[in-house]
């Protein structure tokens, strides 16, 4: 009878929610989650930083069809890393490629995989950003006697960076979420820590709920920073 009424009035659920155990699991492991979030941030920052260097180089190569090798190599790179899942890239690199180069740790391997992946997307951002600048700007520079590189450096890039910043911040946010995939190779970032706590406590709602909220706060802060930058660039 009591069983029945509690079911009807949803007492079961309420009872579960009032259960102190799940809450304790979260508080007990909170500092571990925080360290995991820091690892996630570190991984993301490194991946996007290296990704920006790769992206600038390969994006510029994509705009130089006269330099055939570079142009095609860059196309291949971009297509491959955008055309295959990051998850598979992480596995391939960690288990399939890097062992040939000696004992490279999971974290380094994860940074390399994420950087290569990010670089491919950023290359496209860079290419689009440069192509968004009016052709006449390059011509004006060239007609003043600048060579291609000088015109790119003094005229095109200072304008393109404004176009590039908003999509770059989007890429940053996407990468931050996607680093959760490296938990598969044992990098002790936020998601892996969630998995471990979940496995030993069996509190899925509490654990994954907390992990989700931490990710959400990080992406939200980044998005707000992005909005701020966009507004600042607009008024410049």
């Amino acid at each position, binding site marked *: 009878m009591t069983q029945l009424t509690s079911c009807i009035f949803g007492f079961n659920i309420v009872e579960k929610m009032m259960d102190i155990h799940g809450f304790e699991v979260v508080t007990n492991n909170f500092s571990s989650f925080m360290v995991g979030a820091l690892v996630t941030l570190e991984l993301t920052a490194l991946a996007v930083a290296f990704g920006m260097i790769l992206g600038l180089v390969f994006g510029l190569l994509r705009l130089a069809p006269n330099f055939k090798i570079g142009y095609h190599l860059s196309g291949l790179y971009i297509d491959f890393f955008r055309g295959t899942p990051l998850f598979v890239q992480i596995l391939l690199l960690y288990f399939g490629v890097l062992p040939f180069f000696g004992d490279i740790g999971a974290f380094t391997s994860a940074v390399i995989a994420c950087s290569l992946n990010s670089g491919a997307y950023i290359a496209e951002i860079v290419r689009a950003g440069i192509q968004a600048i009016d052709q006449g*700007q390059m011509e004006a520079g060239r007609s*003043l006697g600048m060579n291609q590189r000088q015109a790119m450096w003094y005229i095109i890039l200072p304008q393109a960076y404004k176009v590039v910043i908003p999509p770059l911040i989007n890429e940053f946010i996407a990468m931050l979420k996607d680093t959760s995939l490296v938990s598969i190779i044992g990098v002790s970032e936020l998601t892996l820590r969630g998995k471990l706590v979940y496995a030993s406590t069996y509190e899925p709602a509490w654990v994954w709920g907390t992990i989700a909220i931490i990710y959400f706060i990080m992406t939200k802060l980044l998005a707000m920073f992005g909005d701020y930058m966009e507004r600042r660039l607009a008024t410049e």
Partner: protein
Amino acid sequence: MIRVENVCKSFGLLEVLKGVSCYVAPREVVCVIGPSGSGKSTLLRCINQLETVQSGDVMINGMDITHPSIDINKIRQQVGMVFQLFNLFPHKTTLENITLAPTKILKISPAEAHQRAVTLLGKVGLLDKADVYPHKLSGGQKQRVAIARALAMQPKVMLFDEPTSALDPEMVGEVLEVMKDLAHEGMTMMVVTHEMGFAREVGHRVMFMDEGVIVEEGTPAHLFDNPQNPRTKAFLSKVL
């Protein structure tokens, strides 16, 4: 100064210049007129190699600049170009627009470049706009800055591609005035224009271009008052 010999240029299957030959002597002002799409801009752009030519020669100061061994950047420093849509650098102030190339390319000192820019701004009547960004300028002011920017490289010849076509009518005069001063100082100029009054008054020679060829050329008096070719006559009757 400039000698174009038998230049042909196509974009894909479209033949835009069909064997054009012409010249501009030192201190001469040559105006190019003709219907739109006739290849006037392409001709100017071939002269400073913004377009590569398929055949023919472009000689500047006796050097064939279509030759691969030529450092085209060095040549372009001596050939100023003014565009229909100004193409000012939006991230630089008026003054910086003018000093950028002289400091970075000619490597003259910032102080000297600044002095040069101030002198030129005075000349085009925009001293008070030195620290303003281009988007704050009117069309006529933008084009005057663009002229000053080109002059800061101290070019030997200036190319103008319809410098007043994108301007509101009340601003055409101020730009033409600057160009007229320049002509009177003895600058060698090649001017593509629809301003027939300017061509007649300032031009030493006028060329009429149609469908990728120079149909007729001569002194303004000859070309405007006594055109020989029926195509010239037809064009002039429409624009005059």
